[in-house]
């Protein structure tokens, strides 16, 4: 068990590519932190620097109170689970899991005890004599996790461990990983590009983009209070709608958001102070699909009705997603599945502006 900390960590590759641009990150003991971001955002590189598989160009990485910049991977007391499992193909499941312990000269009975214990946690006891090629994808991934667990390391590192599994198995293994973490409580750093995985697993999510950390926070925090347009757009599925808008004077001394000449929405009074100083500027309005829904006469009073032509309807069972265009910008709304909507028809909509986000178009900062 240990805390991990990255201090001003930079990674430059040959040829001048800067993959990680000076990140600071403190991971507490027993915490489950997920690094998430699009391809090439530096999340895997960061993980590999923690593992010791990549050299650190600048800055320091601490594990359990020691700087590990120059410590080789085997002496960092970490365990890693790879995307493609990386099982030793010529060894049985037992030997795969025991390999690290054998190299560390653990006594035989202790190795057996630990492997059996890990096999029990992961429910792979009956597979111990098999070779990896005789296992299914999910079983292989369990063995890879077992190999990490038996070592009882200070830190677990996961590098997109579920990307190779099919959708159903992925959800199952996700729960499994969370369960394992709840059992062993080892500090965990987990890399994924899947924001659902990040949200469901993490104590804290680190959103990365272009080699920098965009935001660190609990899943709820990132979802409800993103600090940048990137985070707002990356977290949540379907993604947040972004519309160019302008803040102007509204009724009764309040403010309003003007999206088009026809669509002018009142800013909730609680946000007037916050948005007042941006009056007259070009801004970007962010609204999640679930905060954009069909208008009911009997609904909340004072909510603005906007009629829009339906472009595409996606029924998903418990909800239906409806896509529109406002100007040239695509917009998605989540409506009640009972709502009748056909492509080409006009659908009356309204928005919960208490959940709106307003961003500066240049910096992408949420105001």
């Amino acid at each position, binding site marked *: 068990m240990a805390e991990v900390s990255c201090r001003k960590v930079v990674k430059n590759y040959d040829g001048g590519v800067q993959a990680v641009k000076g990140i600071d990150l403190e991971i507490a003991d027993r915490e489950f932190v997920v690094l998430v971001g699009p391809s090439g955002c530096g999340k895997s590189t960061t993980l590999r620097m923690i593992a010791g598989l990549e050299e650190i160009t600048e800055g320091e990485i601490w594990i359990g109170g020691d700087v590990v910049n120059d410590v080789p991977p*085997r002496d960092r007391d970490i365990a*890693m689970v790879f995307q493609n*499992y990386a099982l*030793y*193909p010529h060894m049985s499941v037992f030997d795969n899991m025991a*390999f*690290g312990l054998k*190299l560390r000269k653990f006594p035989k009975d202790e190795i057996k005890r630990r492997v059996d214990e890990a096999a029990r946690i992961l429910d792979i006891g009956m597979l111990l004599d098999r070779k990896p*090629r005789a*296992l299914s994808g999910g079983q292989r991934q369990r063995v890879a996790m077992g190999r990490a667990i038996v070592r009882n390391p200070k830190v677990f590192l996961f590098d997109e461990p579920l990307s190779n599994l099919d959708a159903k198995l992925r959800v199952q293994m996700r729960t499994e990983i969370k369960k394992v973490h709840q059992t062993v409580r080892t500090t965990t750093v987990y890399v994924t590009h899947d924001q659902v995985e990040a949200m469901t697993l993490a104590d804290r999510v680190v959103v990365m983009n272009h080699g920098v950390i965009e935001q660190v926070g609990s899943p709820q925090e990132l979802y409800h209070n993103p600090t940048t347009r990137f985070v707002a757009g990356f977290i949540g599925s379907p993604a947040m709608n972004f519309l160019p808008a302008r803040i102007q004077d509204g009724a009764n001394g309040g403010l309003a958001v003007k999206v088009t000449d026809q669509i002018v929405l009142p800013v909730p009074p609680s946000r007037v102070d916050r948005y007042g100083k941006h009056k007259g500027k070009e801004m970007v309005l962010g609204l999640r699909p679930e905060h954009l829904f069909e208008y009911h006469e009997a609904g909340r009073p004072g909510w603005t009705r906007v009629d829009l032509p339906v472009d595409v309807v996606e029924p998903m069972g418990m909800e239906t997603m409806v896509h529109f265009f406002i100007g040239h910008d695509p917009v998605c709304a989540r409506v009640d599945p009972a709502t009748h909507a056909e492509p080409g028809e006009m659908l009356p909509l309204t928005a919960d502006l208490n959940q709106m986000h307003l961003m500066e178009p240049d910096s992408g900062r949420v105001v």
Partner: protein
Amino acid sequence: MSSTTVVANEVPRARRTHNSLHRQRTWALWGSYIALGVFVVIFLVPPFYTLMTSLKTSAEIGAESGSPWIVHHPTFENFWYLITYPNFQTYYINSVMITIVVVAISITIAVLAAFSLSRMGFWGSQTLATGVFLTYLIPASLLFLPLFKIIGWLGLINNIWCLAILYPTLAVPFCTWIMIGYFSSIPKELDEAALIDGAGYLQMLWTIFIPVAMPGIIAATIFAFTVSWGAFLYPLAYLYTANQMVLTVGIISDLIRGDVFLWGKIMAAVVLASLPPILVYAFLMDYYVAGLTAGATKG
């Protein structure tokens, strides 16, 4: 019962259609059989002729009548002569000894070199890997004069052990190249997993790479064996007394006496000399199991 029969009769039979795909396949098969047949004839006739001749007496070989492809009075006298002939025993032992040593040296160097070149990623490793292959492109006949100097300087002229130095120069570059290819096909994550599990580079090589790349090592072994067992030029140039010779040179220098060719004995010697390669190929091919990496990663 009867109803079953009726139902069975009602099922329409799948008709075999002679479509163009089927015709193409037939043509392709015929083409393959003809081509393979030609190859079999070209490659198997010389060994067959060798075997036939080795079973003939000198008189029968010299006789101008009768078909040369058939043995009328088969005899093992040529074989018996060679087996009891001390010089031939020496050649045989020398060849076996040198080949074992050369294969061991070549594979050791090739595996270590290929591992470091393909996995340790040091500065210039790519260039070095290409360099290794380029060495293989230099013909042995170009090298044997400078090598003669070196062997002379080492005092190993007419010493069988000079071959243990010379043959690896032929075998190592290609073996290294084969091994680089095999090692490169092993997923990078496997060494990273081993590094994290606590293995050093040598442990990683020994416990992961060598077992996983066994098909490659066997391919390299077969190559090194072939080079060593069949090499002719170097032993011809560097060895001249019977007690130091290997089979390839021994056979021709001992069984061609002046302008007298002891054909029966030469052919019998060739048959005996080709036994080890046949055994090695047959034995190693069984262990040449491709796809050993199956299961390491998603596949």
